[in-house]
């Protein structure tokens, strides 16, 4: 206890000295630091802040110091988080390396692989993307067709991926490839890392309904990758993939997390305030039905936040994300979707603009436009990272122990080389 209090004091002092003032203000979306070879720092303080935090390993406070992490235990990292929150410090670095790949490498990679990749993740030197989904496969991740064929000490990779977030801006990719073409489909997959600058890699952005293009199609044409880049055992990539998906779900469920708070940018800061503003209400929201719906939304948001906290407390006893991650992922996504549907109702036609055609944004403010875009974006929450339907299947089967229809009425496993895990009835309906 004494130690913790001392650490708190030190941390507070250090942050006071090292966190630039502009890093204590709400972060506009375009100032998020993703790192990488071509990292953009729209605000020069961001660079300074990243470097200072990375030097202490505090971009990844609980990772081992050996690989550049902060080496803090849970209790100390909580203190750090609290102290950062106290001064509203921005996260110095956001990346798939931190949220997805890193934890899995730490758990499953060799010492050499860790030494090569982890420090660059910690320092934001390399930006990663995820090569999972393929055109036509969707939720049926394991049905992937990208091939890796051994040629001497290299694999030659051919195929394509889809829904690769920020592939056009990433330096390296962690990728699922098929290395055994005879085995049942889950048993012939390997997990491999390679440089996006390799010869034969190309990307093409996908334009979304929200107007953004965060996703790409990614093509591999005779890409040569050293065997040493394989993580884990050959043909055992599915185990790693599943582990990583759990981390992804935990991250996506965070969408719903801030619903109960007022710390999001944009007009949806407070649905109730927005609704009152556009109706000229002062004391009470004058549309009682919308008021009821917003109340219901906020109650669910608060309950969701508490459930996330409870889940974290329960997880302390065990290790890593637990079964509730499916519950949280789904609920968080549905909350986010509800939030934006309510935001549209709150602001009426003013939340339905696409672009401003005036210089002073007198037709639509940037915040209003952001609501419409984010509303559209939110529709993807229940598709990416395992669809809503897949998560419900998982809860029904793994948490509630309900029986598998396929096992009851005959099994296609043979036909497709599937294990019990991906029997048809267990699975989804829509694609990732």
């Amino acid at each position: 206890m004494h130690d913790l209090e001392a650490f708190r004091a030190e941390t507070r002092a250090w942050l006071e000295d090292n966190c630039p003032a502009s890093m204590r203000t709400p972060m506009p979306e375009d100032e998020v630091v993703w790192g990488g070879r071509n990292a953009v720092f729209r605000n020069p303080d961001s660079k300074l802040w990243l470097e200072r935090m990375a030097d202490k390993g505090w971009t990844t406070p609980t990772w081992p110091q050996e690989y550049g992490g902060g080496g803090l235990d849970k209790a100390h990292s909580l203190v750090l988080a609290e102290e950062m929150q106290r001064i509203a410090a921005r996260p110095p670095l956001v990346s798939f390396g931190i949220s997805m790949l890193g934890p899995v490498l730490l758990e499953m990679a060799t010492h050499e692989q860790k030494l090569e990749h982890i420090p660059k993740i910690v320092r934001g030197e390399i930006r990663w993307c995820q090569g999972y989904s393929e055109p036509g496969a969707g939720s049926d991740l394991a049905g992937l067709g990208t091939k890796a064929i051994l040629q001497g000490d290299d694999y030659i990779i051919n195929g394509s991926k889809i829904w690769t977030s920020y592939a056009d801006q990433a330096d390296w990719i962690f990728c699922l490839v098929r290395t055994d073409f005879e085995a049942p489909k889950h048993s012939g997959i390997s997990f491999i890392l390679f440089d996006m600058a390799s010869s034969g890699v190309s990307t093409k952005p996908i334009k979304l309904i929200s107007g953004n293009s965060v996703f790409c199609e990614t093509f591999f044409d005779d890409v040569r990758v050293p065997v040493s880049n394989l993580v884990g055992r050959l043909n055992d990539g599915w185990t790693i993939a599943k582990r990583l998906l759990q981390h992804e779900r935990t991250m996506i469920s965070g969408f719903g997390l801030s619903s109960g708070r007022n710390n999001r940018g944009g007009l949806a800061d407070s649905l109730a305030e927005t609704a009152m503003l556009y109706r000229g209400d002062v004391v009470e929201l004058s549309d009682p039905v919308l008021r009821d719906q917003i109340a219901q939304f906020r109650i669910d948001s608060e309950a969701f936040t508490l459930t996330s906290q409870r889940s974290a407390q329960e997880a302390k006893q065990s290790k890593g994300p637990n079964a509730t991650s499916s519950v949280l992922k789904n609920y968080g996504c549905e909350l986010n979707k509800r939030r934006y549907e309510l935001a549209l109702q709150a602001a009426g036609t003013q939340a339905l603009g696409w672009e401003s055609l005036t210089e002073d944004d007198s037709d639509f403010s940037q915040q209003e436009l952001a609501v419409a875009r984010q509303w559209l974006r939110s529709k993807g929450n229940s598709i990416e990272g395992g669809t809503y339907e897949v998560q419900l299947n998982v809860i029904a089967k793994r948490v509630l122990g309900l029986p598998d229809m396929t096992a009851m009425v005959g099994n296609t496993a043979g036909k497709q080389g599937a294990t019990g895990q991906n029997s048809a009835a267990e699975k989804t309906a829509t694609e990732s």
Partner: protein
Amino acid sequence: MSLVLNEDQTMLQQSARDFCREQAPVAVLRHLRDSKHPDGYSAEVWQSMVELGWAGMAIPEAYEGFGFGYSGLGLVLEETGRTLVPTPLVSTVLLSATLINLAGNEEQKLELLPGIARGDSVVALALEETAIHNPLHIELKAVKTGSGYILNGNKDFVLDAHVADQFIVVARTEGESGHQHGISLFTVDAASQGVEVQRLNMVDSRNAGNISLVDVEVPEEALLGQENKGWAALSRTLDIGRIGLAAEMLGGVQEVFERTVEYMKQRTQFGVPIGAFQALQHRAAIMYSEIELCKSLVLKALYELDRGEEAEDIPALASMCKAKLSEIYMLVTNEGVQMHGGIGMTDEFDIGFFLKRARVAQQTLGDAAFHRDRYASLRGF
């Protein structure tokens, strides 16, 4: 009461469907959007529709219309809702022609309606003053002068504002915002001194704009109907507009649903079409049931509109239609995107256009909550 289409109506529906599929598919809207088309609608497509008689659909023959009634116009709107083709059909034909016909005197009708029927003019109804539909909230002032009126104020979200030749401006000549009495209607030439139009780029890529009127002078003849007594005709026009809009929404609802069911049959995951998954089947069956109810409401409302004097309960029917269609268009577009999965999120795919249109159509002339509230008042609770 007939809730099934007669032979003429079936033929009209089929020809409208064929026309929209061939001449005005979703690609037309996409092209207009991507090319940042200055008009926001295709004059050629509109001209073809005019030739088919759609612009004069509900205009009496005395004013060069074709007297097909609102059932006919509703069928056409339903088909345009299936392909989302933007035209002045809602602003000019459904709303403005109706209002002129209801409120105007003989000279005004003779002056304005034939031009609409011929497709020569675009007339826009300038009503809203807030982002939330509220037709009694009228603060734009019209002050009487010796020779006419002077108008001052702003209008928001006016459909087809920047391509309109004329506006019908809802103004207050007496009383306070919120009251029916004191509302008057004026025709205002878009080129008048003091009128400024700001085009809006809406999420559904359809035309709308904000208007400001600063000391706009109009002659006495610009008054449509009686001074202070514009509400009755306006209110009926809005109900007709809501029903027509519900017909358009019904087209979109059916199109999205049919595309989704088709996709469920084609799209394979884990070795089976996704339409074989019972959870999705049940959700589809629930949507189907709701759509059946939507169809009945729209058919009934259009039928009643054409009964003229004998019409039953138009305000309640209009609110039922708009409430229910708003709700179900939202449901079906959300499910449509979800069931299409990743591809439904791409701009390349059409489903997003319907998602966007659904929300703008919902807000136009009152959303589900507005109309349930109104319905409750109409039914006495």
